[in-house]
């Protein structure tokens, strides 16, 4: 058995670890290799044909998708990718299932330093119940039994595979955003911080480390995620306050927070919820407060093939709002939600990425989609994972 990152992390037998490792190998080796083939197919055959047949709009991602899906190779790739995602979920799920009772027992806290507030009467947003995002069977809000922590345990197991960390703390998203915020404002000292859609709190805990004097809160709709997250935070010795509430209605007083954040939440909610939660964030912020959402880049920041390549998530990963999110403009969204014009900015994890995205946008504006795609691919095989939108409440 390998070392566990904290005491609440599920046990893994030899075969369970081996199963995780096999899925991780498929994700890191087979899937990128299949994608290289798809890309070569586009560059060598499908792209040139589309440019001949539809010089006006060959770069439209729907057109590219339709052309790509004519290929057996591409369909085999996507079907395989879907199955690998399902294997990842089943590998985690079957392991957590066999120890569900002992995990629930282990997660009970007698003298917590932080807090957990559940609301059994909370109305679950309909989009949470309609489809299990990331193919996690039962979804993130599933509650199997008294004191259940399974959804949280499964989630942490799968992100340990997905993020290739095999049992780290999987907090790269918030560490990157914190670094970004502190670089812009080294004097930043929020007294109260709120994370929307905090899940198991893996991205919440670094805020307590970065701002030790702050009171750190997180809300999410999933009770089992929060029970697990509460026990996890206690096991790691980080006092945070978790509450069961939708991001659209976290239930705090006006001006309660100096910093409100979210990590990869924006693409998991429909447009109306996204606008509502930003209107609510504006209300919850104290004057001079900041809202900062970290997510993936949107389509207008990517080249045409890269757009298509990432839109595949919708098919194989149960991401119903992925494409709709990527079609929007996050800065305009926050302004629509009430943040004053000019008070919202876009930012990326580092200057190289910022320069890359600006060059892509310039090429797109000039109508040079071939160039936009070429720049999108630097460095080879990578797209920037961290794109931020930052809103400021006037002082």
């Amino acid at each position, binding site marked *: 058995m390998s070392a566990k990152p904290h005491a609440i992390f599920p*046990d893994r*037998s*030899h*075969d369970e670890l*081996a*199963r995780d*490792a*096999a*899925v991780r*190998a*498929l994700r890191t080796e087979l899937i990128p290799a299949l994608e290289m083939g798809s890309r070569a197919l586009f560059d060598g055959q499908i792209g040139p044909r589309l440019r001949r047949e539809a010089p006006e709009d060959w770069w439209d991602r729907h057109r590219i998708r339709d052309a790509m*899906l004519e290929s057996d190779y591409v*369909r*085999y790739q*996507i*079907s*395989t990718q*879907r*199955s*690998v995602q*399902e*294997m990842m*979920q*089943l*590998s985690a*799920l*079957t392991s*957590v*299932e*066999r*120890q*569900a*009772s*002992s*995990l*629930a*027992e282990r997660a009970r806290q007698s003298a917590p330093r932080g807090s957990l507030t559940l609301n059994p009467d909370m109305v679950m947003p309909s989009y949470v*119940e*309609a*489809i*299990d995002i990331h*193919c*996690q*069977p*039962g*979804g993130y809000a*599933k509650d*199997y*039994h008294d004191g*259940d922590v*399974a959804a949280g345990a499964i989630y942490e197991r799968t992100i340990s595979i997905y993020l290739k960390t095999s049992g780290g703390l999987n907090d790269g998203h918030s560490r990157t955003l914190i670094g970004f915020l502190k670089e812009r404002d080294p004097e930043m000292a929020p007294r109260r911080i709120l994370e929307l859609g905090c899940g198991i709190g893996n991205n919440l805990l670094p805020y307590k480390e970065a701002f030790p004097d702050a009171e750190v809160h997180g809300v999410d709709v999933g009770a089992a995620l929060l029970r697990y997250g509460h026990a996890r935070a206690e096991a790691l010795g980080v006092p945070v306050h978790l509450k069961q509430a939708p991001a659209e209605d976290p239930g705090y007083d006006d001006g309660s927070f100096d910093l409100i954040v979210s990590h990869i939440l924006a693409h998991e909610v429909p447009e109306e919820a996204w606008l509502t939660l930003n209107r609510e964030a504006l209300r919850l912020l104290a004057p001079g407060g900041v809202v900062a959402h970290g997510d993936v880049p949107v389509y207008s920041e990517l080249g045409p093939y890269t757009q298509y390549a990432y839109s595949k998530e919708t*098919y*194989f990963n*149960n991401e*119903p709002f992925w494409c709709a999110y990527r079609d929007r403009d996050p800065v305009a969204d926050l302004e629509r939600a009430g943040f004053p014009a000019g008070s919202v900015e876009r930012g990326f994890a580092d200057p190289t990425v910022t320069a890359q995205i600006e060059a892509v946008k310039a090429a797109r504006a000039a109508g040079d989609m071939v160039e936009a795609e070429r720049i999108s691919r630097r460095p080879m095989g990578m797209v920037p994972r961290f794109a931020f939108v930052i809103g400021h409440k006037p002082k």
Partner: protein
Amino acid sequence: MATAENTAPEFTRVARGKRPTLFEPDAIDRLIATNVALTVELSVTRDRLDALERLLVRQGIFADGALDEIEFSKSEEDVRESNRSAYLQRVNYLVLDEARRAQAKADES
């Protein structure tokens, strides 16, 4: 390892939301799913065999590399050969049956 008796209900294994169909007939998607699952399970088995071999070496049951140097007697090799053949028959039962039927038809005419 878990100690408490597990009394939790059985977990659901299928995610809500339509599973994409990439192929017509969609049985091909099912075959791909099984292929991925078998790839994972074979990897688990290989890891387990490797772990077992390392454990036996560590405990001094045999020397490192001994497994690769083993020589089988003629009778042992015969048994292994026959096991391998039976295994291939089982794995390829469908296509081998088709081949046998085609041969029978050819012999008739």
